[in-house]
């Protein structure tokens, strides 16, 4: 199979990239490859909204303030020109999507409605009730149908193939048939999403958020960036860790400890519940650690998110999905009772190292969305900035990839790689499992949450890293695929996804041990302060062929705002 | 004597006039008195919506209000009338603004929708209004040696909010048929698919294909007769190889009436009941 521009992943970044690529050059052969049907992608789960200084609610808002809030929120690890680019694109791209048909909630004057959000100085978050990601994803999919975008649905990417100078193609498995194919392509855009599933059982993410593109980048010898930064969202449901949107606090929800106190008064006296996510997550965990949390029969610890004072009408109108989730997954109606919540692994700031043009160091390979790290989120992402990031950089990636593909031909070779994949999968299928995938995934989640969770320190992390190394070794030795069928073999796919998770957990743990400071979402008990003198850099890591890591310090682009202490 | 309000839908009219006799006899056999809500109007039939959905709320709020004025609950044997009226009741009871707005208009006719009257269909009428024990006592003879396939139709089980029984595992029809002494055939092909009645005009081929499916499934499973509570399902599915009757007709026979007295001879597909 030959495709000029291949987009891997069909979430917001992938679909926007596809649209911008198709609009850029209709004559190219452009396709989206996805392991799920497009509208299943995790973008759809984004609830709260998308940030842009439209100034519809607060006329004093502007792009500059958005830029500053984002940089401050990032704890000064974001590249400031990249943030500026994103924030100045925001109003334009939001309106562009509005013109495509995104059904935004509206103000009485007919303009797009905006609400307050954590870490934002103005009411800047555009929304559609509490299902912004869902309506965006579906509208982008509709536009892809209109533009006649080709989809390879339920294909699973295995590896990137390059010749050391440029991309040759990707290998992928057609899930329906089990056939492995080499797809020759001039340019690939990895829009493969995040990897919070390394916290299996403790994450808001979909089952498939396994960092497939990021792991493939590592195997291709290419760099990942800032992997130690993974955000815990303060409000995951107690039992399932499913997300309760920040909009619940944006609309006026209170966080309460077991004394009935709004404890955020201690940690963020000005912004209260609307402090940035890293701060709120740590505050919740501190309350729990100091025995001011709640504990249920099964020993799960949590605090309460109280919406009852908002009243039935506001909850039904602005937060209908949250109400539904609380009823379905906790058996609690937020109109009547507070929702039990705890922090949940939510978003990877780190990912595939690219520049602002979405280019990796390898010609023809691009990345966009959560899998990518430009970086615009630095050490902590603000709510409402991820839906923005994926479309802004999806758009850039689509255009850049087309430009590259227009000036090049298909590279030769790659057939050997396909044979390798076939052989690898055959061996995996023939191997008898000595341990089960389910147990091992749970073990991974336990290790990561306990040792690389909201609070970290040297001893805990070292212990965790040893456990992780042991798990990785056992997995490669003991794990086979019990399902022998070729047709729709999800057991095989899950096993391959698990190997991806292990690659990522390994590099995340390694990167965490190198950073001896606290910054944004990355918090260590043993180094509680940010240390700009020694650690104001991007960690850039490649994996050597012997499995060891190559660690480099990448420069953080400042220039607009000098790093200052973050206070909320 | 307990009384119930009979809601006259289009299933009592013209070629279907006999349905009225059937249910009056049935209520009599159950020991119930009745009031005919003779100023009630069409429920909308899922067609008035094509003019204006609000009229459906108005019509049925008024229909229920007529029953309330008489101090009785409302009974219809028709699955569709039941579903539409019950759905309206749900809408009115959960939306005070809508209820107030309707009542303002109803006041002109001296009517008020209070939300007190319950909506009954044959199935929940027997279970909840008559009571299954009382029902069994009123059965005078057994219709033995006949295999009956129960067929609910759609609108007594969907939408879930107005279902007369657990829509995933309904048992009420079996509980009503068993005391008649018949053998019950369940789990046949297309037991739960639609009779197609409401596509009769707009897509006759569609109606034809759908009507036949459950009948064939029942026949294949060895049933002699299909029994439905709904006069519309009956109308849609009568006339093919496998006969279909209304549950109330069978009950009337078991309560001592002759098949002719309860209009079984009008069936297009002939039915033989051995008594």
């Amino acid at each position, binding site marked *: 199979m030959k495709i000029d521009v291949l987009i891997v992943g069909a979430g917001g970044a992938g679909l926007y990239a596809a649209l911008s690529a198709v609009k850029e050059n209709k004559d190219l052969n452009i396709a989206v490859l996805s392991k799920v*049907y497009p*509208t*299943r992608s995790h973008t*759809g*789960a984004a609830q709260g909204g998308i940030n842009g200084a439209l100034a519809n609610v607060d006329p004093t808002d502007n792009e500059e303030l958005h830029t500053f809030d984002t940089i401050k929120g990032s704890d000064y690890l974001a590249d400031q020109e990249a943030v500026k680019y994103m924030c100045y694109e925001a109003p*334009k791209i939001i*309106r*562009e999507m509005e*013109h*495509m*048909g995104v*059904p*935004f909630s*509206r103000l009485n004057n*007919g303009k797009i409605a905006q609400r307050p959000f954590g870490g934002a100085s103005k009411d800047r978050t555009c929304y559609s*009730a509490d*299902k912004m990601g869902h*309506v965006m994803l579906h*509208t982008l999919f509709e536009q892809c*149908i209109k533009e006649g975008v080709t989809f390879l649905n339920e294909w699973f990417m295995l590896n990137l193939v390059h010749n050391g100078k440029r991309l040759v193609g990707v290998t992928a498995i057609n899930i329906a048939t089990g056939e492995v194919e080499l797809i020759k392509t001039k340019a690939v855009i990895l829009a493969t999403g995040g990897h919070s599933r390394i916290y299996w059982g403790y994450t808001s993410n979909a*089952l*498939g958020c396994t960092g497939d593109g990021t792991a493939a980048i590592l195997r291709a010898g290419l760099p990942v960036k800032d992997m130690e930064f993974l955000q815990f969202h303060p409000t995951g449901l107690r039992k399932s860790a*499913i997300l309760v949107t920040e909009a619940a606090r944006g609309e006026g929800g209170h966080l309460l400890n077991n004394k009935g106190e709004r404890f955020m008064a201690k940690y963020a006296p000005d912004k209260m519940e609307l402090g940035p996510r890293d701060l709120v997550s740590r505050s919740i965990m501190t309350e729990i650690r100091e025995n001011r949390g709640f504990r249920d*029969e099964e020993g799960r610890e949590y605090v309460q998110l109280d919406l009852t004072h908002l009243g039935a009408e506001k909850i039904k109108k602005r937060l209908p*999905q949250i109400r539904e*989730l609380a009823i*379905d*997954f906790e058996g609690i109606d937020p109109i009547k009772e507070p929702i039990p919540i705890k922090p949940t692994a939510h978003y990877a700031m780190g990912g595939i190292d690219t520049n602002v043009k979405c280019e990796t160091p390898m010609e023809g390979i691009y990345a966009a969305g959560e899998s990518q790290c430009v970086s615009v989120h630095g050490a902590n992402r603000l709510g409402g900035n991820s839906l923005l990031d994926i479309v802004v950089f999806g758009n850039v990636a689509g255009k850049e990839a087309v430009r590259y593909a227009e000036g090049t031909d298909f590279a030769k070779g790659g057939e050997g790689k396909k044979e390798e994949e076939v052989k690898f999968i055959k061996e995996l299928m023939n191997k008898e499992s000595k341990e*089960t995938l*389910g147990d091992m995934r749970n073990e991974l989640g336990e290790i990561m949450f306990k040792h690389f969770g909201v609070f970290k320190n040297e001893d805990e992390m070292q212990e965790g890293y040893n456990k992780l190394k042991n798990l990785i070794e056992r997995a490669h030795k003991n794990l086979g695929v*019990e*399902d022998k069928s070729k*047709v*729709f073999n999800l*057991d095989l796919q899950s096993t391959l996804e698990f190997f991806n998770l292990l690659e990522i957990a390994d590099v995340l743990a390694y990167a965490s041990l190198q950073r001896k400071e606290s910054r944004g979402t990355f918090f260590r008990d043993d180094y509680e302060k940010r240390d700009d003198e020694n650690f104001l850099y991007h960690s850039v890591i490649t994996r050597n062929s012997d499995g060891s890591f190559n660690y480099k310090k990448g420069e953080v682009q400042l220039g607009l705002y000098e790093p200052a202490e973050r206070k909320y | 004597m307990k009384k119930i309000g009979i809601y006259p839908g289009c299933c009592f009219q*013209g070629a279907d006039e006999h349905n009225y006799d059937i249910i009056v006899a049935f209520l009599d056999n159950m020991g119930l008195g009745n009031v005919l809500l003779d*100023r009630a*109007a*069409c429920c909308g*039939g899922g067609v008035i*919506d*094509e*003019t204006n959905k609000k009229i459906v709320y108005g019509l049925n709020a008024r229909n229920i209000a007529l029953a309330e004025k008489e101090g009785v609950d409302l009974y219809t044997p028709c699955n569709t009338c039941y579903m539409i009226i019950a759905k309206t009741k749900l809408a009115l009871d959960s939306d005070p603004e809508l209820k107030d*707005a309707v009542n303002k*208009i109803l006041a*002109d*006719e001296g009517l008020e929708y209070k939300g007190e009257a319950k909506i009954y269909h044959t199935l929940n009428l027997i279970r909840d209004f008559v009571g299954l024990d009382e029902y069994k006592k009123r059965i005078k003879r057994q219709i033995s040696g006949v295999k009956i396939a129960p067929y609910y139709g*759609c*609108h007594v089980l*969907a*939408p879930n909010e107005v279902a007369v029984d657990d*829509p995933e*595992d309904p048992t009420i029809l079996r509980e009503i048929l068993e005391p008649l002494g018949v053998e019950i055939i369940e789990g046949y092909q*297309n037991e739960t*698919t*639609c009779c197609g009645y409401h596509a009769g*005009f*707009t897509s006759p081929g*569609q109606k034809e294909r*759908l009507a036949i499916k459950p009948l064939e499934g029942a026949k294949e499973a060895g049933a002699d007769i299909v029994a439905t509570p709904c006069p519309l399902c009956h109308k849609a599915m009568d006339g093919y190889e496998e006969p279909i009757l209304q549950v109330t007709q069978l009950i009337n026979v078991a309560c001592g009436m002759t098949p002719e007295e309860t209009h079984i001879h009008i069936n297009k597909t002939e039915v033989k009941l051995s008594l």
Partner: protein
Amino acid sequence: MEKIKYTVKIKRYNPEEDRSYWQDFEVEVEDSLTVLELLMHIKDKMDSTLTFRAFCRSAICGSCAMVINNRAGLACKIQAKDKIKRGVIKIEPLKTLKPVRDLVVDQEPAFDKLKKIKPYLEADPKIVPDNTKVESLVLPEEFARYDKQTDCILCMACYGQCNAIEGNPEYSGPFQLTKVFRFVMDTRDGMDIQERIKLAEDNGIWDCVQCQMCFAACPKGIASCEDILELRRVAKDTGEDNVATRRAKFWFETVFATGQIDKFNLPAVALNDEKGEEIRNNLAKEFTQRGISQEHFVPQPFENIKDFQKFIKKVEKEL
């Protein structure tokens, strides 16, 4: 945490042998599992070959639609313990799509049908600006007309339970028609309304049997059956003249005149051809044979019909 024991009866499909069969799994699990968690438990602990789609596990991605106890729904949204009926939960693939393996069905035909109805906004240049300096203005009440319909997650639960497809496999499907509705109601849409309606008609609005099963199946509470009625209304109001729109007009007229629909004359009026006349003649013959008097051929206005007519007029205007 309480553990409960029950049987999970799963309809599996083996593609290599092209064979469907039921398999029972006896489980003893916590009582708080969703059906999806139950399936994951079976896959992790009992049979790793059991195949089903799942992704977000929070009822927004639409991957895990299947038939549970004869009703389509999302496995992740449904509590397993609520579905145990006499010790058994019954799980099957969606009924109107071909199984690929076990609970996984081929969704492609349903997506193809979606594409046929042009499921996208064609921006109306009168409403949608040609630049990104401003957005189109949409009043909250204008958005409210299709707000609910934008909740659709394309999970296909409605499609998997649709009786109209049972009768006619070419029928488009409930969610597809809800999508037409969504764009017909969007003030920003510039596609000719007749074209939108034509797409709905060509893809089956007249084949819908109004069984309500799509509404019962929808995890988001969308009533496609009602959207279809609205589309029929729009078809009528935009001047469509066919059997259905003639039926709708006549239905309202006779209910307005008498309180009841005139079923005697309806076929002749709606069909508007010889066949309709023939049906009326046959009815007349049948009535006479059965001794039904002429005045009972058609409904007679009930007492004080004028008050009823005032009521209907007021409802149309004020409700």
